């Protein structure tokens, strides 16, 4: 167990990742599709892509050394083809349901889904192939916050209070209370789960895309995506602030600010559309 844990600097408490919760609506929908012999992997992939925890579990499993191609599979659709619906059934059995956590971190799911959409749109605007790979990275960029909320509810509460009282952003509050931010938890999770290097770097460096080693573009896409989704005030990443925007990200993407205008038009339509599907 010990190699699966990350120790926080406060109270020596330990994070472990054994049982992350997911959304009841998404879980119900996936269960229904998986049990229907007429449903397609495309349909299942579409629903799973709405939940960051389920998506992470699926990517973690397909990239585990057991399957023999660790770190190669970047999209949910491909993962489902390779895992097969049987394994998806297994993942569903072992997934618990988002309930109390939703109160603790309300809005994080919407924020993650919004960042996924934004990352896909930005990747398209920057002319990258396979925008789906960027969508996954956007979806998972705040997974570390879910882990803290589930594993260390008391410290998570302290982070929330710090955000409120000191009027700092969530990322800074995490570093004050835990000793590190969710980006570090992301990095640790991504390595343990053998996630593909582009997803891993985006999860790790979405606050500092210029520090990414090999996949600055993916990290930069998610950085801008995070910024845009906060600008739209869609969902909530844990504070009311608009995240710090690094101009370096636009340089990496070879984009000008005005290139983001059509992206924002597209996003505002999409956010309207998905806001119908939330509870």
């Amino acid at each position, binding site marked *: 167990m010990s190699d699966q844990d990350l120790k926080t600097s406060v109270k020596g408490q330990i994070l472990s990742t054994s049982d992350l919760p997911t959304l009841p609506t998404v879980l119900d929908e996936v269960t229904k599709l998986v049990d229907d012999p007429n449903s397609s992997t495309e349909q299942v992939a579409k629903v799973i892509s709405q939940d960051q925890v389920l998506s992470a579990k699926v990517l973690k499993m397909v990239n585990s050394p057991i399957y023999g191609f660790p770190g190669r599979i970047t999209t949910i659709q491909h993962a489902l083809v390779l895992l097969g619906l049987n*394994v998806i059934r297994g993942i569903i059995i072992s997934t618990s349901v988002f309930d109390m956590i939703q109160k603790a971190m309300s809005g994080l799911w919407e924020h993650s889904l919004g960042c996924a959409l934004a990352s896909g749109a930005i990747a398209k605007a920057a002319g990258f192939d396979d925008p789906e790979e960027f969508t996954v990275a956007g979806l998972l960029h705040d997974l570390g916050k879910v882990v803290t909320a589930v594993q260390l509810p008391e410290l998570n509460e302290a982070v929330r209070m710090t955000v409120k009282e000191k009027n700092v952003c969530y990322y800074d509050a995490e570093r004050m209370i835990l000793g590190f931010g969710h980006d570090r938890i992301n990095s640790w999770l991504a390595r343990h789960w053998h996630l593909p290097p582009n997803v891993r770097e985006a999860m790790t460096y979405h606050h500092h895309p210029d520090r990414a080693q090999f996949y600055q573009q993916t990290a930069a896409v998610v950085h801008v995506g995070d910024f845009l989704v906060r600008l739209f005030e869609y969902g909530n990443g844990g504070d009311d602030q608009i995240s710090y925007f690094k101009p370096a990200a636009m340089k990496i993407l070879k984009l000008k600010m005005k290139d983001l205008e059509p992206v924002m038009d597209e996003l505002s339509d999409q956010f309207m559309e998905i806001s119908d599907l939330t509870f």
Partner: protein
Amino acid sequence: MDNNKNHGLLGVKKNRAILVSPDEEFKVLLSSIWPEDVLEFTFYSEAKGAVEDLFNNPPDLLVVDNRLQDVSASDLARLVKSENVYRQLPVIVCMDEADFDNPWDWNKIEVDDFILRPFIKSVVRDRVNLTLCRALRALDANPLSKLPGNTSIIQRIQTLIDRQQDFALAYCDLDYFKSFNDKYGFSRGDEVLMLSARIIVNTVKSFAGEQTFVGHVGGDDFVVITSPEIIEEVCKRIIFSFDSIVPNFYDMEDRKRKSIVSTDRQGNIQTFPLMAISIAVVFNINGKLKHFGEVSAIAMGLKKKAKENPKSSYVLDRRTN
């Protein structure tokens, strides 16, 4: 009693086992038999949680109690045994006498053994030991993909021929696998073989209610046996998945260029396209074929035709239509 000498697994390397059971006494019993450096148990009182551990870090043995509440022991066994990746993992179920009121269909619940309550320590010990040892013996499975090998493939074909049952056999192999293997090395070549095996297995399995078989002849050659009605759709879906996933297995620059460039022994620069999959389909309809040898001979002839196309393609044996 000295456990260290009395466990019966002398000379066996360290093994890991998972017990999924709500029965606390049983956990105590099992931990008392083997020292941890011979057989270490991880305990789960319900299937939830155990399943994820099982899939991510398969143990050498799984013991499942039929008293489980959240998932039945047979469902859990089926979940494990129906996946080629986990199929070799030996499974023992624990039962109460009442569980035997009706006979079990061991063809459906492919477990390796059972133990009966009330547990007798020495019997539990030897049942577990026997199951572990049996699992260590060789199987006719490809060590890489864990799919059935040639003995099983030939047997399957001949049985269907003897029964005069209609079937379609698809012989799949990869184009430009060798140049991929040469450039990137055999461990990345193995990744592609694992990928191909997973795509083929899951595609065939996605047709609900069909009797299907997938075997691994060796190297980059695979065999699919299924009903003639669905084979063309199977080929199309395998090709679609293969073509969309395989670029992920190349380095970024080759993926962008859609080819690999290498230098042969004479110093000539050669360019190879990305890998593709060729499928040759042989039909046996109305008892036309008599011997498995005919099947492979026809398939080899068709394979050449499929390979003429550098892209992924399938060729159906029209002679039997």
